[in-house]
C-alpha cells in the first residue's frame, strides 16, 4: 500500500462497500428466483416450452367368426395453422383452395385471425388431401384423427353399434366392450421453441399407447348378410312394422346372425330414428303365440303324460275354455298329439296343458329360460315376462300354452328351439368368441356353456320329429326345401293393444332347425304386424326362413352336398341336356345351371362364365373376383343371382 493511497482509502472503502452491497442484493434476488421460486419458474418454463402430444390408441376391431373385419379405422386428417408462424400465407391459401375447392378468400380470412390456432379443414380423408401431405408448408399443423368405419353398414349395425366422434362406444358391442376396444391413450412430451415449432421429442418421459383389443364375434357375416337381405326382401313384400330374426348354432349356443329391418347406417347414425338402432331380438318382448307350443309339448312328453300318438277331441274348432272361446284355424274332430302341434291346434294344446296343470307348465317355462335374461352380455337385454302360477287366472294355463300371457324375446325363443335342437340343453347365448390383445394374448375366451338341462334327449328327438312333420305336412309347409329335412314351428300371435287382443295386428313367427335329425342351425324370424299378404307365421315368416336356409346351404361347406355326376344314375345322365358344355366344347366349369368358380377371374371373364352358366351376376367393387355369394358347383335355378365381390389385385 502506497502512502498516496492512504489518503483516498476511506472513500475507496465506501465505494467498495456500496458495490458489495449491490452485489449481495443481486445474489439475494438470484437465490430467491433460482432456489426458492425454482419450482414455479421451472413449471412455467416447462409449460411454455413443451407440448404434450396425445398418442391415440387405435380402437380394436370387431371381427366375425372367420376374421372378416366388421369395423375399420380410417385415418382422417385435419389441418390447422398458426397464422403468426405461416411464412408464405399466399402459397398456403393457393394450395388449399386448389385442393379443397374452396374460395381462397375463405382461407385468407381464417389466416387473418388474431389467434395462434385456426382450423383450415377438418376430417379429410387421405385421398382428398392431395399434395398437402407430401410437402407440408411451414406453420401448417396436421392432425391425424382415426375415424371408425363400418364396412358392412346397416347389415350388422344394431349389433355392432357405433361410436361417437371421439371414438367412444355408444351402442351395441361398441358400448358393452368399450373398455376392451378403446385401449389406452399414450402421450409424449415434445419440446418446442417460442414460435411453436416442435424441436424434438423429449424422450425421457411419455407413454406408448396401448391399442385396443381385437374382438371376435360368433357372428358369421356371410350368414348375417344373407339373413339381412332376406329380411329386407320380406319387408318389401309384407310391409310390417319391423322384422327381425336370429340364427343360432344350437350345439354351442353361438349366435351366427342377428338381423333386423329397418336397420340403420352406423356411419351416419344420426340419420336414423333411435328405434331402429336398438337390437330388437334382445330388447323387444312380445307374446309369441304358437311357436311357444313346444314348451307344453316338451312338458307333456318329458313328464310322459302324453305320447305323440294320444288323441284329443278338438271340438270341431270351437271350444269354451272357462270364459274364453277358443277357435282353431283348421277345425278338426280328433287330432293326435303330433297333429295338434303340426296343425297348431289351440284347442288341442289347451287340453294338453290342462292335463299337465299350471305347475308343470310353469316349471317348463322356467326351465326353458322364460322370464330370465339369457345373459348375452349386451345392454338392454329384456328378461321377458313370466308370472308365477299364484298370479295366474283360470285361463292362464291354457293361455300360456298357446303362447299368450308371457313375454319373450326373439333371443329367448331362439334358445328354446336350440335346446329342442341339441337334445334338451339350454345354452348360454354366445356372441363374443374371444378377445385378443394387440400382442395376441387371449384376454377373454368364451366356451359353450350349458345353463341347464330342460328335458331328456329322447323327448327332444320325439319333438323334433313332430316339428319335422310340421314342415312336411303341417302349417310350416312354406318352409319346405325339397331334398332337405327341416323342422319348424309357426306362430301367429294377436298383439295385445290397448287392453285387448287385436284382430288386425299380429306377430308372425317361424322357428326352424336344420337338418332336422341333427340340427346345426336354428333360424327364427319374427314379423311384427305384416300389412300385406299373409299375417300368419306360415305365410309371412316361414318363406323367409326357407330362403335363408337355402342360401346358407348353397354357401357353406358344412351343409353343402356337392352334385356328383359320376354317381348319377343312367336315367339322370339321359336327362342331362346336350349342350356345348356337356359336349366338351366349353370349359368344364361352365355347365349350365351350375355356378362356375368366378374367383380370380376378371369381371369380363366372370360375365362370360355367368352367361354360359345361366347365372345372373350382381357385382360390387372392381378388380378381380375375390368372393362369390353362391359356392362354385352349386346347382341353381336359371337366372339365379350370384353376388360377386371384386377387389384390386394387389390387396
Amino acid at each position: 500500500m502506497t502512502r498516496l493511497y492512504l489518503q483516498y482509502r476511506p472513500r475507496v472503502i465506501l465505494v467498495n462497500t456500496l458495490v458489495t452491497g449491490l452485489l449481495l442484493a443481486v445474489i439475494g434476488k438470484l437465490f430467491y428466483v433460482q432456489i426458492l421460486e425454482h419450482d414455479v419458474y421451472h413449471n412455467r418454463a416447462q409449460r411454455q416450452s413443451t407440448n404434450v402430444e396425445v398418442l391415440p390408441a387405435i380402437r380394436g376391431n370387431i371381427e366375425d367368426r372367420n376374421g372378416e373385419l366388421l369395423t375399420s379405422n380410417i385415418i382422417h386428417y385435419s389441418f390447422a395453422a398458426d397464422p403468426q408462424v405461416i411464412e408464405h400465407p399466399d402459397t398456403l391459401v393457393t394450395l388449399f383452395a386448389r385442393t379443397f375447392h374452396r374460395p381462397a378468400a375463405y382461407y385468407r380470412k381464417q389466416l387473418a385471425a388474431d389467434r395462434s390456432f385456426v382450423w383450415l379443414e377438418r376430417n379429410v380423408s387421405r385421398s382428398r388431401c392431395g399434395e398437402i401431405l407430401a410437402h407440408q408448408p411451414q406453420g401448417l399443423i396436421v392432425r391425424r384423427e382415426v375415424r371408425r368405419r363400418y364396412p358392412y353398414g346397416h347389415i350388422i349395425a344394431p349389433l355392432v353399434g357405433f361410436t361417437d366422434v371421439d371414438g367412444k362406444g355408444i351402442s351395441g358391442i361398441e358400448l358393452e366392450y368399450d373398455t376392451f376396444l378403446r385401449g389406452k391413450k399414450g402421450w409424449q412430451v415434445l419440446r418446442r421453441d417460442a414460435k411453436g415449432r416442435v424441436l424434438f421429442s423429449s424422450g425421457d418421459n411419455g407413454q406408448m399407447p396401448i391399442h385396443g383389443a381385437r374382438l371376435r364375434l360368433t357372428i358369421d357375416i356371410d350368414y348375417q348378410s344373407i339373413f339381412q337381405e332376406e329380411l329386407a326382401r320380406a319387408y318389401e313384400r309384407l310391409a310390417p312394422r319391423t322384422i327381425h330374426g336370429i340364427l343360432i348354432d344350437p350345439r354351442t349356443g353361438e349366435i351366427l346372425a342377428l338381423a333386423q329391418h329397418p336397420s340403420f347406417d352406423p356411419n351416419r347414425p344420426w340419420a336414423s330414428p333411435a328405434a331402429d338402432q336398438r337390437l330388437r331380438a334382445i330388447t323387444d318382448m312380445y307374446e309369441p303365440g304358437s311357436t311357444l307350443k313346444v314348451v307344453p309339448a316338451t312338458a307333456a312328453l318329458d313328464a310322459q303324460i302324453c305320447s305323440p300318438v294320444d288323441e284329443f277331441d278338438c271340438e270341431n274348432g270351437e271350444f269354451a275354455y272357462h270364459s274364453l272361446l277358443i277357435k282353431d284355424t283348421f277345425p278338426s274332430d280328433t287330432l293326435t298329439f303330433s297333429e295338434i302341434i303340426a296343425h297348431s291346434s289351440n284347442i288341442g294344446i289347451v287340453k294338453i296343458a290342462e292335463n299337465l296343470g299350471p305347475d308343470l307348465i310353469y316349471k317348463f317355462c322356467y326351465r326353458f329360460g322364460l322370464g330370465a335374461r339369457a345373459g348375452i352380455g349386451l345392454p338392454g337385454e329384456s328378461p321377458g315376462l313370466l308370472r308365477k302360477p299364484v298370479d295366474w287366472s283360470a285361463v292362464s294355463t291354457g293361455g300360456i300354452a298357446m303362447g299368450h300371457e308371457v313375454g319373450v324375446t326373439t333371443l329367448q325363443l331362439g334358445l328354446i328351439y336350440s335346446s329342442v335342437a341339441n337334445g334338451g340343453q339350454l345354452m348360454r347365448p354366445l356372441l363374443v368368441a374371444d378377445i385378443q390383445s394387440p400382442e395376441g394374448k387371449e384376454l377373454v375366451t368364451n366356451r359353450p356353456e350349458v345353463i341347464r338341462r330342460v328335458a331328456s334327449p329322447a323327448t327332444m328327438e320325439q319333438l323334433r320329429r313332430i316339428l319335422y312333420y310340421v314342415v312336411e305336412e303341417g302349417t310350416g309347409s312354406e318352409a319346405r326345401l325339397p331334398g332337405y329335412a327341416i323342422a319348424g314351428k309357426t306362430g301367429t300371435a294377436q298383439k295385445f293393444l290397448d287392453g285387448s287382443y287385436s284382430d288386425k295386428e299380429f306377430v308372425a313367427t317361424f322357428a326352424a332347425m336344420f337338418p332336422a335329425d341333427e340340427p346345426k342351425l336354428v333360424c327364427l324370424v319374427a314379423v311384427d304386424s305384416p300389412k300385406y299378404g299373409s299375417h300368419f307365421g306360415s305365410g309371412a315368416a316361414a318363406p323367409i326362413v326357407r330362403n335363408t336356409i337355402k342360401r346358407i346351404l348353397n354357401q357353406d361347406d358344412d351343409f353343402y352336398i356337392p352334385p356328383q355326376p359320376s354317381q348319377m344314375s343312367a336315367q339322370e345322365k339321359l336327362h342331362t341336356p346336350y349342350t356345348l358344355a356337356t359336349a366338351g366344347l366349353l370349359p368344364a366349369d361352365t355347365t349350365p345351371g351350375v355356378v362356375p368358380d368366378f374367383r380370380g377371374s376378371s369381371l369380363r371373364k366372370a360375365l362370360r362364365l355367368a352367361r354360359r352358366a345361366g347365372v345372373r351376376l350382381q357385382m360390387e367393387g372392381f378388380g378381380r373376383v375375390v368372393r362369390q355369394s353362391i359356392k362354385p358347383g352349386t346347382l341353381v335355378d336359371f337366372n339365379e343371382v350370384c353376388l360377386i365381390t371384386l377387389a384390386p389385385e394387389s390387396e
Partner: protein
Amino acid sequence: MRSVATTQRYDTWTLLLTFGLVGVGIVMLYSSSADTAVELTGDHMFFLKRQVVRVLLGAALLFICSRLDYHHLKGFANWLLVGSLFLLVITPIVHHATGGEGAGRWLPIGPISVQPSDFARLSLIIYLAAYLDRKGAHITHLGRGFLPAVVVIGCTMLLIILEPDFSTAALLGLLGLTMLFLGGVRGKHLASLSAISLPLLTLIMIIKPYRLVRIQTFLGLIDSPKAEYQISQSLISLGNGGWLGQGLGNSVEKKLFLPAPHTDFVFAIVGEELGFVGAILLLIAFFWLFQRGIVIARNAPDRFGMFLALGIVFNLMTYVLVNAAVVTEVFPNTGIPLPLISYGGTHMVFTLISLGILLNISSATRRRRWDRNLVHAKARS
C-alpha cells in the same frame, strides 16, 4: 530474485480472471446465440465467429496496452476526450445522413460499425484520472477543481443522451461522479450537484415514453405485456436453472423465448444452464477482478495510475452489477451488456483494452516493489 520478479510482472489474478471470463464468455455466447443465429441467418455459429474475431482483436490490443507504459496516456488524455466527443457528435449526423432510423448509437467505419460511447467512456476514465492527478488537492475547489470536470462529464453525457442511449449516459455519469468522489471532491459539492441534476435527469428520462413505461412497469404501476415479457422470460430462465442448472446447452429459454439471449440477457442463460452456483461463481469472478483492481490501485506508483485502475474496474463492475440487477429485476429493464460475455464488438474490445491498461499499471507496481527490494538488498550489502 530477478527471475521471480520477471514472472510476476503482471498481476496474475487479473490475467487469469480476464482470460477465464473471456473463455466462459465465448462458450456462453455460443450456447445462448446459436438458436437466434439459426433463426436470423441459418448459421448457428454466426455470432460466435464474429465474437471470436473481436476477442482476438481485443486480446491483441490488451497485449499491446499491457506493454505500453500507461503514463503515455496522460499526454493523450485531452486528445482522446476531444476525439471521442467528436465521434459522438458525428455519429447521429452520419446516422441520419445514411437514412438510418431509431437510435444512432453506431458509427459505421468501413465494413464494421463501432459504438463511440464505449470509446468515450474509456477516454473519460483516462481524462478524469489525468485531471485528478493534475489537480491533486485542488479538486476540492469548486470553480477550479470540481466544476470543470462536471462540465466535461455533463457534455459527454449529453451527447450520449442525444443518441439516444440514456442508460449508458447514466452509467457514464455515475462513473464520472464516483471518480470525482474518489478523487476527493467535497461532499457538499456532490450533494448540490445531485440536488440540481436529479430532477433534470428525471425529466430527460420521462421525455421518452418507453422509458417511463419501463419504470412504471418495474414499479408495478402499469401492466405492459411487452415491457414485462422480456423480464418475465428472464426470471423464468433463471428460475428454471435451480441450484446447478439445466446443463450447458440445455436452456429452453434461448429457444427464442427470451429476447436478446446472447446480448443483454446472456446472464439469464448462464443462470439457466449453469444454475445458481454458476451464476454466483461468475459474479464472484467479476467481483474478484474488481478487488484485484483496488489492490492494483492501492499499489499503483502514482495518482494517475491509481485513479486509472479504480476507474477501469469500477466501470467494469458497474456494468456487471447493473446488468445482473436488470436480469434479476432488481433494476428496471434497460439495455446494458455484461462485460466480456455479451455479444458486442466495441464493448468487448474496449473492455479488453482497459484491462490491458490495468495489467500495465499492475506491472508498474510490481516493478517498483522489485526496485525497492533491490534497494533494500543493495543497502544490506
